[in-house]
């Protein structure tokens, strides 16, 4: 159905939407601003959206909770409708697609063939690797094999959320299904990690827009995350930072400090060790973010954040298997042991000196 000869560009579709060129350019400018890009790239975005057909996207779901998809549809600039109808062609997505069963799988296979090397593979969730991958199957095949097969001819891979980028909750100890993040299962592919549980909607659409505009992945940091969204710690942009520096902390839930919006550091806030855009973009179109609503950050975009708990403690056990003590517990035991050792040595040396004196004493008397 429909002609495959002519593919509408984003601009075409927007124009059909009754959006004129001036508003279209404004749309591009806003998008650039949202991505933290210089105004000079706006013409490039305009050109990309005017001339490029919609980017084919295959969106796979593995071991996950679908909240990344839910976050995605909450995007405000651009709104999800514009992304799905005008910017990308979401050709496969179990959660939203109309087709089901083998017809759905047909869609995936067709895109893999017709758009080899051109489609983007977006992965939500990760793959279980234990016991032959039986903990997640789709259409009778393991998700692991589907993931690897679909990545084969992808132009790039987007790892949505902490599941796909870091493993997330199912990979928390003892990781009963052997869940592994995408970058540990796919090699020789450009992969962009977009961590967060879930990631912020505008970060997700921002990454897609960037890829669509520039035909390449954004600049990545050491963890394969786009620098423009994960370059800074929550703590360094947090509006409660002045309370942190002042030393004004919430000491217990709903206390006076909590009502005044003081720093949540002592309630276990992971802002000082977490990289994400929450304080700048905020959530759900700038309404708030975890700290803004009185709960500490739990570090949901960081590797292994589930195993860095308890979330309400500042100090948790040091990351050595078998050790379940905090640095302070270990430290006080070690220092205590040193004190005891020193004490024992001191006592025995005093005792020794006393006996030596006794031995010497008759000698002296005999002289």
């Amino acid at each position, binding site marked *: 159905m*429909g*002609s*495959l000869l002519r593919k509408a560009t984003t601009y*075409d579709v927007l124009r*059909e*939407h*009754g959006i004129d060129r001036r508003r279209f350019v404004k749309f591009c400018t806003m998008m650039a601003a949202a991505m933290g890009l210089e105004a000079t790239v706006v013409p490039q975005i305009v050109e990309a959206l005017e001339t490029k*057909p919609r980017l084919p996207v295959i969106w796979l779901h*593995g071991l996950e*909770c679908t*909240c990344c998809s*839910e*976050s995605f*549809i*909450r995007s405000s600039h651009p*709104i999800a409708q514009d992304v*799905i109808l005008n910017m*990308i062609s979401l050709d496969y997505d*179990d*959660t*939203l*697609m*109309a087709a*089901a*069963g083998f*017809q*759905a799988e*047909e869609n995936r296979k067709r895109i893999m063939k017709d758009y080899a090397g051109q489609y983007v593979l977006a992965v939500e969730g990760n793959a279980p690797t234990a*016991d032959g991958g039986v*903990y997640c*199957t*789709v259409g*009778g*095949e*393991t998700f692991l094999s589907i993931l690897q097969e679909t990545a084969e001819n992808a132009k790039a891979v987007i790892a949505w959320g902490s599941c796909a980028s870091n493993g*997330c*909750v199912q990979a928390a100890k003892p*990781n*009963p*299904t052997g869940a592994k993040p995408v970058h540990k299962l796919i090699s020789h592919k450009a992969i962009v990690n977009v961590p967060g549980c*879930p990631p912020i909607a505008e970060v997700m659409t921002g990454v897609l827009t960037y890829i669509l505009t520039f035909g390449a992945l954004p600049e990545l940091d050491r963890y394969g995350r786009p620098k423009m969204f994960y370059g800074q710690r929550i703590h360094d942009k947090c509006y409660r930072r002045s309370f942190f520096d002042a030393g004004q902390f919430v000491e*217990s*839930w*709903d206390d006076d400090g*909590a*009502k*005044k919006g003081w720093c949540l550091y002592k309630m276990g806030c992971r802002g000082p060790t977490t990289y994400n855009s929450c304080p700048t973009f905020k959530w*759900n*179109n700038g*309404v*708030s*973010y*975890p700290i803004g*609503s*009185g*709960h500490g950050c739990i570090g949901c975009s960081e590797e292994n954040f*589930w195993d860095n*708990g*308890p979330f*309400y403690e500042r100090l948790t056990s040091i990351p050595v298997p078998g050790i379940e003590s905090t640095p302070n517990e270990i430290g006080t035991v070690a220092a205590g042991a040193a004190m005891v050792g020193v004490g024992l040595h001191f006592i025995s040396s005093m005792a020794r000196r006393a006996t030596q004196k006794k031995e010497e004493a008759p000698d002296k008397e005999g002289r």
Partner: protein
Amino acid sequence: MATRVVVDPVTRIEGHLRVEAMLDERGVIKDAMSSGTMWRGLEVILKGRDPRDAWAFCERICGVCTTVHALASVRAVENALDVKVPPNAEIIRNIMFLTQQVQDHVIHFYHLHALDWVDIVSALKADPAATSALAQKVSPSWPLASTGYFKDLAGTLKKFVDSGQLGLFQNAYWGHPAYKLPPEANLMAVAHYLEALKWQKEIIKIHTIFGGKNPHPNYLVGGMASAISMQSDNAINMERLNYVKGLIQDAMQVVENMYIPDLLAVASFYTDWAAIGGGLGNYMSYGDIPQNGIGDVSQFRMPRGVILNKNLSEVLPLDLTDAGQVQEEVAHSWYEYPEGKGALHPWDGVTVPKYSGPKPPYKQLDENAKYSWLKAPRWKGNAMEVGPLARMLVGFASGKTEYKDVVTEALGALKVPATALFSTLGRTAARGLETKLCVHWLMAEYDKLIANLKAGDSATADTARWEPSTWPAEAKGYGFTEAPRGALAHWIHIKNAKIENYQIVVPSTWNASPKDSKGQHGAYESALLNTPLADPKRPLEILRTIHSFDPCLACASH
């Protein structure tokens, strides 16, 4: 011989569901199998952790019904530790709960279920002027109904289809004989699909205000972390509360002037589905929306109870702590129970995975062996259906006037008898009717919050039992809620301030469960029986009935 129809993946749901249906010669479903094909092991992962953290782990069971697991979890811990949350915290939780209910139901109707009834391709043939007339007739107060509006939309749709990149709409069952809406109704539905997509991100801001983000807002054992202070620009204050109120008002518009009219309009074309997909006839609701603390079941807005064999004249009591009532079996599930154990109450629950299905890639599962990652929960040995329909029926049968009114009104509008409720259509309609109740309760809970604040109470958390040093060496608790998809409960066993055992029994576990040791089907399986398929290669009818439950498989198998 019988043909076997396999639908895998079942799409437009959350998670990984496989359905196999066995048809007789006439194409009627004679046996059906519902299989959850993923498992993550949350119950195993939770062991040994801090009970105060459990809500965050549990919340990640599902991002679609996000918050309900967090809610059940904090309630379970509070129950174990005997913590009573302050009234404000209870009201805020009710507001967040109702927000979730409303948002999730609307998304389900428009984005997950609608395409079972709405043929997008047929919408191309619609006349914008006629669509406008239809829209104004269906809902006189909904503003977006001009000819120009529908003309723009028709143009967009055409351009989209002509582009050749059909995206999400590629290769579905368009043109299937079971689609009955006229083109104009289809076009209107497409318009509202997009309107609902835009609106769902607004209503959910209520979660963001109180919980900091959505999906996965924050909860807290003992109350809520969002402190309230009218004197502060750094807490829940008047500006935030007004924001919430505005969002609730918008939600009322959407539900009353878009969702409910659409639902009734679509349903009126499909009254034949009031006789299909009934299934078990056993319904259960744990109840929720406490008005006087979670311990006072009699004061819930959503009542608790059990209905067996469609008998609306009797609502049976239920007790989540009774070892003989809620139990889980694994006769057809890929788990192992200790020697000699057949059914376990969740406090004694065991989660040890043991896959014994065919080696992937496989073509079919064996209905006589184990075939799902879902356990099979049963109430006093009965398979139960849970969800909006169960809640409406329990409310209706309990004689609650709010429930009686909406149900009677809808039955009258559709000119169908009360028995029509026991069906696929009944399930879909009940969800809409419940949403209507929920938006009103949302405003009522908001007003309660304001009244409580006016009375000078701004407490949001009780921290007397925050420190583990104040806890008993051992404690057991349970927490429940009525999630969008139905009755949800978590059972926790705390020992030495750590989680000793944690068991989760989820609405979709009840509904999508495999058979039990007695061979009793779960609700999905049972609802599929006796459904005729017009075209076994395009089993639209299976999708309709399965979708009417709003499946969530990440929830179901966790």
